[in-house]
């Protein structure tokens, strides 16, 4: 993997600018605030990719809320190869039973991770559980799960930035861009 010191130069196209993302996050926050008024909302963010989105989204919601973080192993990761099964690397720190949970995801691609997480979280008996995804990439969707709040539907391209990585790099880009093939083919 070859990473330029100037991360931006590894991006062939800016798909979503910082301003576009910010405006959409505000819009989502307002919608969520209206929908969950008077309810006990818990935002659950899935590390690591959704961290910037979570940080911005929670500040766009005007309601009292709790946040919690989860991390699950990804297929192909070094921590998972011994078992061959997805694992919860970081579980919720507080019970969600009886609460309204909004799962905050950076991107929905195949839907496999989301499918696993929803099954897991439903087992903790929340009052309700919905999904908020910044990016929806439906081209390779295997598990059709209704997404309650979606920022942008994006084309079939390998995107990085605003939390999204390739090999743990590029998460700190302030925009979402398409990674140059040279960056992952080398």
């Amino acid at each position, binding site marked *: 993997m070859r990473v330029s010191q100037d991360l931006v130069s590894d991006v062939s196209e800016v798909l979503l600018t910082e301003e576009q993302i910010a405006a959409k996050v505000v819009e989502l926050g307002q919608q969520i605030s209206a929908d969950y008024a008077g309810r006990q909302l818990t935002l659950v963010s899935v590390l690591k990719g959704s961290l910037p989105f979570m940080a911005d989204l929670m500040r766009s919601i005007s309601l009292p809320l709790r946040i919690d973080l989860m991390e699950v192993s*990804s*297929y*192909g*990761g070094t921590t*998972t*190869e*011994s*078992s*061959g*099964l*997805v694992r919860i690397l970081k579980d919720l720190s507080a019970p969600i039973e009886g609460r309204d949970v909004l799962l905050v995801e950076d991107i929905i*691609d*195949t839907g*496999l*991770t989301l*499918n*696993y997480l929803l099954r897991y979280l439903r087992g903790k008996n929340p009052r309700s559980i919905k999904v908020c995804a910044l990016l929806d990439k439906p*081209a*390779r*969707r*295997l*598990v*059709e799960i209704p997404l309650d709040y979606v920022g942008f539907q994006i084309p*079939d391209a*390998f995107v990085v930035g605003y939390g999204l990585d*390739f*090999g743990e790099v590029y998460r700190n880009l302030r925009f979402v861009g398409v990674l140059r093939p040279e960056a*992952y*083919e080398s």
Partner: protein
Amino acid sequence: MTDGEAPRGPRPDHAFAHASEAEFARILDFYQVEWEYEPQVFPILWDLDGNVLESFAPDFFLPELELFVELTTLQQRLVRKKNRKVRRLRELYPGLRIKLFYARDFRALMLKYGRAALVSELSGTLGQVMTHEEDTEPSAPAGLEPESDVNGHPIDRADAGSSASGESIPVHRRRSRAARRHGGRRSNAGSAPVSPVT
């Protein structure tokens, strides 16, 4: 693969026709999605007497999702025949949900999971694997010309059955780790080590 040639890529100990299928099964196992491998054959062409001329057996069925998945790791320009079959399948069986995963999709999946280096080994003709299971008839590599059924009619998988009545026939019913937990028969998805769920 010719006699004496060393196998390339992962060597699944399960009779997948192609290494990409074994990898795909490992991904499904990882995320605990139940799967069956080539469980059904769908006739897609008949002669005037009602005999099946052509059939199609999608690679995977995901029962919980009620979705068939067909993988092809051939180059895009070579998948016209596969596209035609999937189109025909959708026309004849409108209630059936099937997803065609092209080479570019498989490549993107591998890239997403940090396994881009494996793509060439798992794709196209390099990804062909030989089958050794006694209960498995010889099977064709994914994407090659369809082989023939007992009547010499083309089938998209050599190990797939066909029916003159036009009904789909269960052929192989290999079930995933998730299925085994529910009392079903488990198949090994490939060469990755497997540990019990904890």
